[in-house]
């Protein structure tokens, strides 16, 4: 059973995010990490490899050349090999273009399970897994808190309003997992050293039989505006007062805003 984990390199969560003039994220000089939600997909895949359910774990990423750093980091956690799809024509790719490229790469890799995080930390579109499943015409098992694979089918445990459901589908599938999978492991020192020797291939659009002209600038969405969230009003602090007096002040504040 072969798993391909799709990962995305994103700016570090706490990084100062800036935009270029055409409203794309300026990646220059910004610390980049594996999308934290993808780390749960990596952890899930490696657990399946640890217990013998998976024979091979491959990582797949689409992004600029520096995204190979994210793939090496993933390989340090475990797994066998990695593929980076990179092409100048992919700059500015939206969810549709990304899904098209990942679907083509997955056609070539032919995994039993294409595993993804539930969203990316930077864009949070959550559209790619569904789009990839649709394009490849395979079932989507989404938002799993656990993934199990046996007897030619995959099952995810998904939290519901009243408990949880087990959702099953025949292989091959696209699956996404949540942070309920369990804490992602740390890369060990030997893992980091071994990762340098694991195969990491780079594919262009041509290698996937995709037409650069068709994908270039073919995003279905356009970013019309980008701005940081509005600053909150400064916090008012009530300090150094007897508790009863402080409580009265808080009550007055809430009452003035018709909150109580």
């Amino acid at each position, binding site marked *: 059973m072969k798993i391909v984990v799709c990962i995305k390199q994103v700016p570090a969560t706490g990084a100062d995010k800036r935009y270029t003039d055409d409203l794309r994220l300026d990646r220059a000089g910004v610390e980049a990490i594996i999308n934290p939600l993808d780390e749960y997909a990596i952890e899930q895949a490696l657990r399946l490899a640890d217990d013998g359910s998976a024979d091979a774990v491959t990582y797949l990423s689409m992004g600029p050349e520096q995204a190979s750093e994210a793939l090496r980091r993933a390989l340090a956690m475990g797994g066998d090999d990695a593929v980076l799809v990179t092409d100048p024509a992919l700059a500015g790719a939206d969810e549709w273009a990304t899904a098209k490229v990942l679907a083509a790469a997955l056609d070539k890799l032919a995994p039993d399970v294409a595993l993804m995080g539930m969203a990316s930390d930077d864009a949070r579109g959550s559209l790619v897994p569904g789009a990839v499943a649709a394009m490849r015409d395979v079932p989507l098992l989404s938002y799993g808190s656990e993934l199990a694979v046996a007897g030619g089918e995959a099952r995810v445990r998904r939290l519901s309003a009243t408990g949880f459901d087990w959702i099953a589908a025949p292989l091959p599938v696209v699956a996404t997992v949540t942070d309920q999978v369990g804490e992602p492991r740390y*890369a060990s*020192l030997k893992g980091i050293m071994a990762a340098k020797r694991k195969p990491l291939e780079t594919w262009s659009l041509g290698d996937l039989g995709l037409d650069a002209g068709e994908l270039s600038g073919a995003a279905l969405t356009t970013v019309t505006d980008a701005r940081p969230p509005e600053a909150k009003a400064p916090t008012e602090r009530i300090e150094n007062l007897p508790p009863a007096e402080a409580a009265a002040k808080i009550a007055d504040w809430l009452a003035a805003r018709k909150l109580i």
Partner: protein
Amino acid sequence: MSYLPSTEHDELRAMVRELADEQIAPRAAAIDETAEFPHDLKELLAQQDLLGTCFEERHGGTALDTVAQCILVEEIARADATTSLIPIVQKLGALPILLSGSEEQKDRYLPRLASGEWLIAFALTEAAAGSDVAANRMRATRDGDDYVLNGSKRFITHGSVANVLTVFALTDPQAGGRKGMSAFIVETDTPGFAAPRVEHKMGIRGSPTAELTFDDVRVPSGNRIGQDGEGFKIAMATLDRSRLSIAAQAVGIAQGALDASVSYASDRTQFGQRVSDFQGIQWMLADMSAQTEAARQLTYAAAARVDAHAPDLPYWTSSAKLVAGDTAMRVTTDAVQVLGGYGYITEYPVERMMRDAKITQLYEGTQQIQRLVVARQLLQRAGVDTRGS
């Protein structure tokens, strides 16, 4: 010799720092308060392959260079000095085997140390023989194919949690400590061995410092390290290298205190401005930083000379330990000053760091012994006879 760290060094630092920030630093206060050995963190370090960095790959290690080993210790000590002693003592105890052990001894013991399955301790110091190593009294008497060990050791780091020890004992009491001492590998489940007591300490409180007793402990002659009478030489060669780990530990403690100071000073407001806006505080922070960096660079310079087998190694490692230990004490003391009253209470980590720093001026050779080593090398270079000193 390059004066810049390699990409591998940077990667290692990033890896250990993440682990230390997330898993070790949050445990440090409790380890200090309870004075309990952090078995969980020993397991974590073992799992991440961080106890085998000084061992060759054929023994299950990762054979990192000495600068990298210093970075490992430094980054752990930045979070918690007690925990940094786990890799430090794993190397200290194993150094006699690494330097003078037989292939058979290496194959038997090093893989278990590299994996962290076993802990080792270095048992040299005795109640009446601290700096004066040659005053050791513990005996090892030949009896057929065995040696029989009798006596006691004191101030042995990890002595009560170790599975195996490297022990120094007199095989020829007439010849004295310098010529008549030999080194042995002793497994701690050997009958007659006990660790009856651990010390109550000012710092590194989670690291058990044990008294060890040997009552007719029988050790096969195959467990003697090196030749009969080579114990003193092996002990000195070990300390010439191991004290560099203490320099790295001191640098890490200083860095941890500096980082805590910068964080506090830029957060705390007094007289309507951040404490870090006061130039008097800025000068303190700058001095703390420059001194820490100087200690770090001297430590790395000494580390590079370990790998280059420099003939004047003791000069470098003693200088590094001397400078780094004094720096750790000064920087942590200043850190408490920067934090003011908050620095003096356990709500912030700097009072613990100040207590932890003190040991780096004492163990693996007091600062006075380091000065003696440095001065002897200095005078020898100048052609001055130092035998009488």
